[in-house]
């Protein structure tokens, strides 16, 4: 037992710094991904409901654009967002280059088609007669939309997970627009789990990279579990 302690403690001695570093990276990762997913959801759900339940010219085209967007290469999104927020770009005056907000923007662009596409499939599968029932019971159009979302909740939860998964595990665009910045004191500013893993691997510090990788996997699993649990907690499972 004392022997074990002796071998373990040097490892812990280095931990305070590393631990701060890792914690701040996790915080930045979660902040950027969660905010991006929240914003995406706010945009995606109305679009999915609108596209799902109205007929208009170009609906098929719009649907296929959304589906194409789901597989849009993240590096290209990063480049486009970089041009948009860069000094000369249309959003240049906001001074967003190399900030978490720029990363949120690029994650938003990445996650929105995924969330819209999967939600669209989910809400489209809600039966019309259930929507009619909500309307006939005195529901407004908004009530009908709410019922649709509730009926499609497992599909929408899947959509959010897919969007979150894409956002938090994505490395190309956040590296380009965020710059992978950590302060001299080891506090992450725009360094996320993915960009940190890339950096640590590049420097051959595979232990740290592995720890970060494990945290990333655990985070994704945790969020999955929470969403699944929330989804099944309300109303019961069919």
């Amino acid at each position: 037992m004392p022997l074990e302690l002796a071998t373990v403690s040097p490892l812990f001695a280095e931990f305070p710094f590393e631990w701060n570093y890792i914690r701040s990276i996790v915080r930045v990762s979660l902040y950027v991904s969660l905010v991006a997913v929240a914003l995406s959801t706010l945009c995606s759900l109305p679009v999915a409901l609108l596209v799902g339940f109205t007929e208009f010219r170009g609906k098929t085209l719009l649907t296929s654009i959304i589906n194409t967007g789901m597989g849009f290469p993240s590096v290209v999104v990063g480049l486009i967002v970089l041009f948009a927020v860069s000094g000369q770009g249309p959003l240049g005056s906001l001074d967003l280059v190399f900030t978490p907000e720029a990363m949120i923007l690029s994650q938003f662009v990445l996650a929105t088609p995924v969330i819209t596409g999967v939600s669209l499939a989910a809400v489209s599968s809600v039966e019309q007669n259930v929507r009619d029932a909500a309307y006939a019971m005195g529901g407004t159009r908004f009530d009908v939309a709410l019922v649709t979302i509730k009926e499609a909740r497992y599909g929408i939860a899947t959509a959010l997970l897919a969007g979150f998964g894409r956002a938090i595990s994505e490395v190309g665009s956040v590296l380009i627009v965020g710059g992978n910045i950590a302060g001299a004191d080891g506090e992450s500013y725009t360094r996320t789990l993915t960009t940190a893993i890339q950096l640590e691997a590049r420097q051959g510090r595979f232990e740290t990279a592995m720890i970060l990788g494990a945290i990333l996997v655990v985070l994704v699993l945790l969020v999955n579990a929470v969403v699944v649990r929330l989804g099944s907690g309300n109303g019961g499972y069919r």
Partner: protein
Amino acid sequence: MPIHRREMLAGIGGGATIGLAGCTSSSDGGDDDGPEISGETITLTTTTSTYDTGLIDELNAPFEDRYGVTVDTVSQGTGAALETGRSGDSDVVMVHARSLEDEFIEEGYGVNRRDVMFNDFVVVGTSDDPAGIGGGDDVEAAFATIAEEGATFVSRGDDSGTHAKELELWDAAGVDEFGEWYQEAGQGMSEVIMQVGQTGDYTLADRGSFLSMQSEIDLEIHVEGPIEGGPELLANPYGIVAVNPGAHDDVEYDLSMAYIGYLTGPEGREIIEEYTLEGEQLFFPEAISEEPNFQQYVPEDWAPSEADD
């Protein structure tokens, strides 16, 4: 505590002037109505080779403490670092490719260039040295031999300072045919060193990056740079340039100048000098000298007659 911080900020304007020209100035900057320091952050773009050694963090911490400013460091290839400066997205740029820095200044994007420090390039490779270039100090001959023997050479291939130097060396060695033995990685220095350690035979690396990785891989130096008595051709000088506020009026010019002043001043020199990895000094400061060195401020081939008009 916030008040303390405000005082810090008020002093920055003065700090910038001190750092740049050595003037004793500014009683208190906080009272006048002129524009105050607008941001508490400057963005430094620099090369992966400086960032990955850990030197930048070591340099930034005391600067941030003293000025109450955050330095956001983005590590890119030399080409990308300068490009970011060109678009006004960084405030100050530290790179190691003099010809590219000169271009940057000549185009009007950079002002007040200073030499900061140097280290050198080394030719590294697997310890079995398949092309047999070890021990010599003629880097041109070594490059020619690698090409002749067709030993694998991993190039950065990423428009970095190291890549620029490597191309210059092939040119000097008279090699203009590149076969299968020549692999462009398109990656940072550390990745390339890792790659050579696993699959390749040789690469050109800056000494700092190599030393910082030495414990991770099984490679050794086959041709030394000037620090260990090798040819001057392998020198690797780092320069720092502020982004010209005339080109981009929203850059943090005064803070950048404070940073340049700090890096090229006594405190910066001391930190650079004392920074070691695996017991070896990585960089050699060259900003402070009794002898004037006007060349550092202007493009290398610039002559006064051109400016006389």
